[in-house]
């Protein structure tokens, strides 16, 4: 199968997935609907991470910083600035952007293994600070927030209505997907892929590799911020735990299980992991054990994850 075909397949799969989600919001019972809301929020995070790892081959262990910052961006702007819901979500996005620029400048110029560890350490610092600065973050106990109405010009909708909640998240996922897809289809995206495939060649072609890597890192961080914000909105809660290492590991696992460098392949990973956490953990406490084995099995079948495996087999 040619590359063009693959991309088309990938796109039709993504759109199919989104169409299913659109319908599901109306037909699912409340329990499964809440699960799908979680899945959609984490899909945004996974996509954002894929820009970093899947498209420019930067294996960051520090994305929990942007996730946490986005969550607190939303919660604090709701609590202190009394912003509306949409401005608050934008504040979350902005928090991700503002943090990813300096952190990117510090880390993207480092070589692979240094990059991995330095990002991990940066996220550890933020976790430590978030745990300690309880006056700001609520520390381990966190901050809960009651959400204002979602004002859409003419109508005010309450996010406590399950359908509004669902479609708010759905629209965010859709918009993030479209924006990111647009970026990747643009020349910028092609350069990302070029850097992933052969960094030295990209350099010889005259591209400022560091700048492009930084761009990918910042885009990734910004959308991670949005994901964190959405997560805080759906849980009505943020805590210092959002900065923990756990939230840096998860996106890697999603992307690798689902499929790296496909933008929407990671959705499969998110869905699987959430189903495991949601249903398997009730029967078998040590579901992470199964998940560890699953990681090894999937990696063994294909380094490009489930999507990569299926595409190779057609």
């Amino acid at each position, binding site marked *: 199968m040619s590359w063009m075909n693959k991309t088309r397949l990938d796109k039709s799969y993504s759109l199919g997935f989104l169409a299913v989600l659109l319908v599901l919001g109306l037909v699912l019972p409340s329990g499964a609907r809440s699960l799908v809301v979680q899945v959609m929020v984490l899909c945004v995070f996974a996509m954002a991470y894929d820009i970093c790892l899947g498209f420019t081959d930067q294996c960051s262990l520090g994305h929990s910083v942007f996730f946490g910052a986005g969550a607190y961006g939303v919660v604090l702007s709701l609590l202190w600035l009394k912003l509306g819901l949409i401005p608050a979500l934008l504040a979350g996005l902005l928090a991700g952007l503002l943090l990813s620029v300096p952190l990117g400048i510090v880390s993207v110029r480092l070589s692979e*293994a240094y990059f991995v560890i330095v990002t991990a350490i940066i996220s550890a610092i933020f976790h430590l600070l978030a745990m300690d600065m309880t006056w700001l973050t609520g520390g381990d106990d966190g901050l809960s927030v009651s959400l204002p109405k979602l004002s859409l010009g003419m109508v005010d909708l309450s996010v406590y209505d399950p359908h509004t909640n669902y479609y708010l998240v759905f629209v965010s996922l859709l918009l993030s997907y479209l924006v990111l897809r647009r970026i990747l289809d643009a020349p910028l995206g092609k350069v990302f892929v070029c850097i992933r495939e052969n960094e030295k060649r990209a350099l010889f072609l005259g591209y400022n590799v560091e700048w492009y890597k930084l761009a990918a890192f910042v885009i990734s961080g910004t959308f991670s911020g949005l994901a964190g914000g959405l997560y805080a909105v759906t849980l009505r809660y943020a805590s210092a735990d959002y900065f923990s290492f756990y939230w840096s590991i998860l996106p890697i696992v999603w992307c690798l299980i689902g499929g790296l460098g496909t933008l929407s392949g990671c959705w499969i990973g998110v869905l699987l992991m959430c189903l495991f956490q949601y249903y398997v953990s009730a029967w078998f406490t040590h579901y992470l054990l199964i998940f*560890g084995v699953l990681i090894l099995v999937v990696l063994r079948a294909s380094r490009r994850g489930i999507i990569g495996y299926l595409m190779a087999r057609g």
Partner: protein
Amino acid sequence: MSEPVLTVVFLLMNGLVWGLLVALIALGLALIFGVMGIVNMAHGDLYMAGAVLAFFLGPLLGHFWLGLLVVLFAIALIAGPIERYVLRPYEGHPSATMIATVGISFILQQLALAAYGGIPKKMDPPWTASFSLLGVDYPGYRLLVAAISVLILGAVWFFLYRTSMGILVRASIEDRQMAEAMGINTSRILVFTFVLGCVLAAVAGVMAAPVTQVSYLMGTDVALLSFIVVIVGGLGSLAGAVITALVLCSLEGVLSAVLTPVQSKAAIFVLMITILMLRPRGIFGQRNG
């Protein structure tokens, strides 16, 4: 000596003891990175596995030091096949290998939780003597641990610099492809290095078990600390890892006397970032890695 000076000297020493243990772990991490080029995310969990196994085996065998030997062999038996059959297929793909080690880390942690339970427990030291040291009743076992760590570090140094196998390992760190071209069986070296690295972590775990708390999550903090040590020391630089471990741990010990715990941790992190800004390849790293 006045009381504050006494305190500082004491903290410096105390940090040094802990630093020796961290040096063992970091040395293992640096070895694995040097030869295989991967960041072993399961390294902290191997340290944990050592401690947990010692917790079970110590009373079973009735002898702590015998337990240490058994753990050493057990970990070697586990680590060998892991490298050969689990990690080897991803050779040359650092991120895939890293994720594979994340998978291994999940498995080790959950197995430990299932077998050992969630309560952190303390283990009795095999040697209960204590010395009056700078005004504090200091447990002798810790001094013993320090001495053994020094011995192990010496043995590893001897092995790497004075035996032919060690030279092969160092050659592989220097330039894998060249070593292969020279006819060195790098497959064997890979397995061997991974096993050695894991065993070093596990041995540190066994010796740390009576000093610290044994819990299935005990590896996480240590792993982060040894990452820092390895990065600041310079990836692949073995001596760098050892020296950095000692300096960093003593420094943190002293800082914790004047600053709050979080401030002293943050200070270490800031220091580390600064060092990396100035020397992106670490203090002891070569220009070209």
